[in-house]
Structures are given as C-alpha cells and as structure tokens.
C-alpha cells in the first residue's frame, strides 16, 4: 500500500519536474545558454493563469492559455533583449559570454519576480484545476488533477519528441545542438533555429508553470527554488541531454517522495542535494551526458 502510494505520488511530481527541466535543457543543448530566469517565467505563467481565470472569471482553459502566452512572451523577451545582445556584443570577450548570460538572465528573473510580487503580492496562488475530484487507484485515493498533471506533462514531452524526430524543422534543431557551424554551412539560418528553440521553451515552461500552479500552488518567492531545481535535474541528467533530464527528473522526484514518506518530511530535499554533489564529483557529465 505504501509502496503503491509512493509510486503514484512520485510519478505525478516527477512528471512535472521532467516537463519543467525539458525546456531548460533544450536551450542549453541547442544554444549553450543556462537561463536563470527559468523559475520566474514559470511563476509568471502560473500567476497570470490564476489572475485571468479568477479575476476575469474567464475560466480555467482561457486562464491556462493566457499563462502559456505570457510565458511565451517572456521567453522571447529573454532571448531578444538579453541573451542575443550579449552573445553578439563585441565588447564582451568570448570566454566571458557565459557569466554575462548567467548574470543577465538572473537579473531579468529577479525583475520578473519582483514585478509579480508588486502586482499580485508574494502570497502563494493556486490555479483552479481543470478537473476536480478524486478516483481510487488500487485503493489509493488520487486527485484527478494529479493524474491530469502527469498526462499533460507527458503529452507535451511526447509532442516535443515527435517534433524533434519527425519534422524537418525539428531535425535541424537536433543538428544545431550537435554541430551549429555545420548547419550554417548547409544554408540554415542559426538565428531562426534559436528563435524556434526559445518559442518551444516558452510553451513548455508555460505549461509546466500552469500545471505547477494548479497542482501545488506557486508564489513569486519560489522562482529561485524552481530555477535551482531545474538546474539540478539538468546537471544530474547531463547538460543538454533531454533523455538524461527526463530520467533525472524521476530520480529526483522519487527520491524526494521516498524521503518524505520513509524518513522525514523535514529533510525532503537533503538527499537530492547530496546525490547531486556526489554525481557531479564522480561523473561530472551527469547520468546520460556527453562530453
């Protein structure tokens, strides 16, 4: 019974982690950018969804749509106004681009977080779930929303898989992550691929944010934690490896859930942090990373 409970609860939270980390790792894989405003963008998506659905009485579907749209807008802004200018700037030495992108996106994340706190206070908010009620799965009472969260997360990841592996545009994405220079030689415009990646990222982060808001609730104060958790999962899985991130998301999700059930909820995140340090020291390329 307990095992089953851990299995079900761990699955939902892990799926959500996986979705949140997928976009993050995709951007790193294709353009080498670690986007530290990630958590703040998820928060924006959730809070906008809450606001549109609740205050305007637009209902959960329109709300969710608005949340994803907001996230998309933020992602574009992050790329066009912060990441691209830094990458193209002649006055920043090449080996320092990375720290500038990190600092720039970090500052942008703080701005988003503060803007949300200013406009909507930092009280946690919950997005009204698309479905309410519970079902019994082999004796474990499970909220329908929890199941929906897992299903939608996997649907989004599945669509991404189809896009990357089955379409021409998608394949160019994959190629860009392997050899950007080769791709430009073949006549592809790299900047268009980057825009596409950021658009995909915006949608994924938006869905993840809205689902998170509906499943667990979210506050502007969570932005940093969300970024750190995506960062950890992605490093654990191997930077840039989508399948590695998916696997790592499940490792993290289940480890946290098991700690909470079997040891104590007060040290929930500690084993993950220790595992992370161990993996980084022993196998810095992560579970499935290439070097």
């Amino acid at each position, binding site marked *: 019974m307990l095992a089953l409970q851990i299995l079900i609860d761990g699955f939902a939270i892990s799926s959500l982690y996986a979705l949140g980390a997928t976009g993050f790792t995709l951007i790193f894989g294709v353009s080498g950018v*670690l986007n530290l405003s990630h958590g703040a963008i998820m928060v924006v998506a959730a809070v906008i969804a809450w606001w549109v659905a609740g205050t305007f009485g637009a209902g959960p579907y329109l709300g969710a749509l608005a949340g994803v749209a907001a996230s998309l807008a933020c992602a574009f802004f992050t790329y066009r106004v*912060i990441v691209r*200018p*830094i990458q193209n*700037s002649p*006055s*920043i030495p090449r*080996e*320092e681009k*990375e*720290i*500038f992108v*990190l*600092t*720039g996106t*970090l*500052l*942008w994340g*703080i*701005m988003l977080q*503060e*803007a949300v*706190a*200013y406009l909507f206070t930092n009280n946690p908010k919950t997005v009204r779930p698309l479905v309410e009620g519970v079902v019994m799965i082999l004796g474990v009472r499970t909220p329908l929303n929890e199941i929906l969260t897992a299903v939608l997360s996997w649907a989004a990841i599945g669509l991404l898989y189809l896009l990357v592996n089955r379409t021409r545009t998608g394949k160019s994405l994959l190629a860009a992550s392997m050899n950007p220079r080769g791709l430009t030689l073949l006549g592809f415009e790299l900047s268009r691929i980057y825009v596409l990646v950021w658009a995909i990222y915006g949608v994924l982060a938006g869905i993840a944010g809205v689902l998170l808001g509906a499943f667990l609730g979210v506050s502007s104060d969570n932005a*940093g934690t969300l970024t*750190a958790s995506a*960062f*950890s999962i992605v*490093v654990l899985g191997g*930077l840039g490896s989508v399948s590695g991130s998916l696997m790592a998301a499940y490792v993290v999700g289940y480890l946290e859930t098991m700690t909470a059930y079997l040891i104590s909820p*007060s*040290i929930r*995140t*500690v084993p993950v*942090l*220790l595992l*992370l*340090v161990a993996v*980084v*020291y022993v196998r*810095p390329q992560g579970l499935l990373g290439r070097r």
Partner: protein
Amino acid sequence: MFRSRTFQIVVPALVVMALLPLGVSGYILGLLTLAYYYAVFAMSWDLLFGFAGEVNFGPSFLIGVGAYTAALLNHYWLWPIPPCLAAGAVAAVVAGAVLAVPALRLTGPYFGLVTLVAVLLLQNVLVLFAGITGGEIGLDLPDVLSIDDNTNYYYALSFMTVSGAILYGLSRSPVGLILQASGQDAIEAAALGFNVAKHKLAAFCISAFFSGLAGAMLIFYLGTASVGTVVDIAVGVNVIIAAVLGGRRTIIGAAVGSIFLIAAGEVLRPLGQLSTFVVSAVALIVILFFPGGFMGRLLQAGGRE
C-alpha cells in the same frame, strides 16, 4: 604604481570617506558601514571570478560559515570578539578548501552548481539544527564591536581598505597574472608550467578567508547572525551583481558596485517594493551596454594603466 589611474582615483575617495563622519548623519554612516562589509564580500568574489575565472554561485556559503562559526563561539562559549573573528576566518578557509579541492576539477556550470548546492545544504543544516543555531530566527550575540556609529564606521572602513589593498595587490602580483592566465586558458597556462589547480585553490582560500572574516565582522556589527543576513541566496546574488556591475577583474570595482547598490536602494526607497525591480533593471542595462562595469569604463576612459 603611485601614478596609476586606479591609485589616483582610490586615494582621494578614501580620504573623503575617512572624513565623512565629520559632516554626515549617523544614519548615512550606518548605511555605508554595511556597504563596506558587502564591498569585501564582492572583492573576494571578484578575485575568484575575475582572476581565476571561476563563477562561485555560493559566496554566501563562505560568508555564512565564517559568520556562524564566530556567532556560535561567542553565543555558547562567550569567546571574546578577536578570537571569534579569527576562528570564523579559519573555518571559512577550511570549508572553502573542502569544497574547492574536488570542485575545482569541475568547470563552468558544474562548478557553479556545486557552490550553489553548498549554500542550500548550509541553509538546510542551520534550519534542521534550529535548537543550536536558532534556525531562521537567528542567534543573538552577547558582544558587539561597538554601539557608536562613528567607531563602527571606522572599523568597517579600515577593514575594507586593508582587505581591498591586499586583494588588489594580489591581483596585480605575479600570482594574479598566473590566475588570470589560467582563468582565460587553463591548458595553455598549464603548458607554460604553472600549476593551475594549486593557484586556483589558493585563490579560493584567500577569497574564503576574506569572505569569512567579513561575515564575522558583519554579525558583530549587527549583534545578530541569521540565515537572512549572511546565508540566504539573495545575499550571494547581491554580491555577484555588485561585482559585475562595478566592473569585474578590477577588485576596486566590486567595492564601488556594492556602495552603488546600497546607495541606489536608498535613493529609490520611495518606490517601495519596486526599488529592487529598478535596481535590477539598472544593473541589467549596465551589463548589456557597458559590460566593463563602472570601473571598466572609468579606467578605460583614461587609457590603459
């Protein structure tokens, strides 16, 4: 060196700062006292980043270890302040070395992540052992440096000046140049026969020493040590912003950035909650348009040293 532009800028500035208590209210002095301690945090960070090329996301790990070591010794064993400060600095160096020895094998984001995780672990430990550490509400200290504004101000100013001079001197010394070379191209530096790892470890320990000492000084100024004042990620984020804003790889710039952040926060106070937003926006604009930061700009304007 005495002719260098940096020198020409810094010395008059220090003179003005030393004379401030004659004409400025205690409130402004209090403001600057805090800014000077932050300046040491930021300068230590710059030594590691600007010269060794390592992005330490967890300056507050080193600050926190130094601060809490000193706080625990003072709170439970009533050690006088000087040995507490020394113990805090030593503890930060030890913790820094334990972290750095394996971590320096890593590069870029991996190193960054490990330093970030170190902060999170420290924070968890402090909260889990709330019975001893006071948890999130902190630990009060029986002793403080002084209750007089002017005295506190001069403590902070002299501490910043001495630390700054040492860190700056170090960065301009042969060791600093080797660090810089290994930060930019570790392989080439190693090929030239320099022990890159050893130099980086040294840089990390020096950075840890000053961070830990400054953290310990700060809590004896405030009379309290809490997660929010010396460990929180937000503290580290401010240190990084200050250093990059002031101009990385200049040491002095980090101090300028810290003082600017504090002053900006005060000027923007009427905006209330939005002040953080505006400060971040200003910092972002500086990074996008003047990547050299304040000092980079200033020093460049007058040509190279």
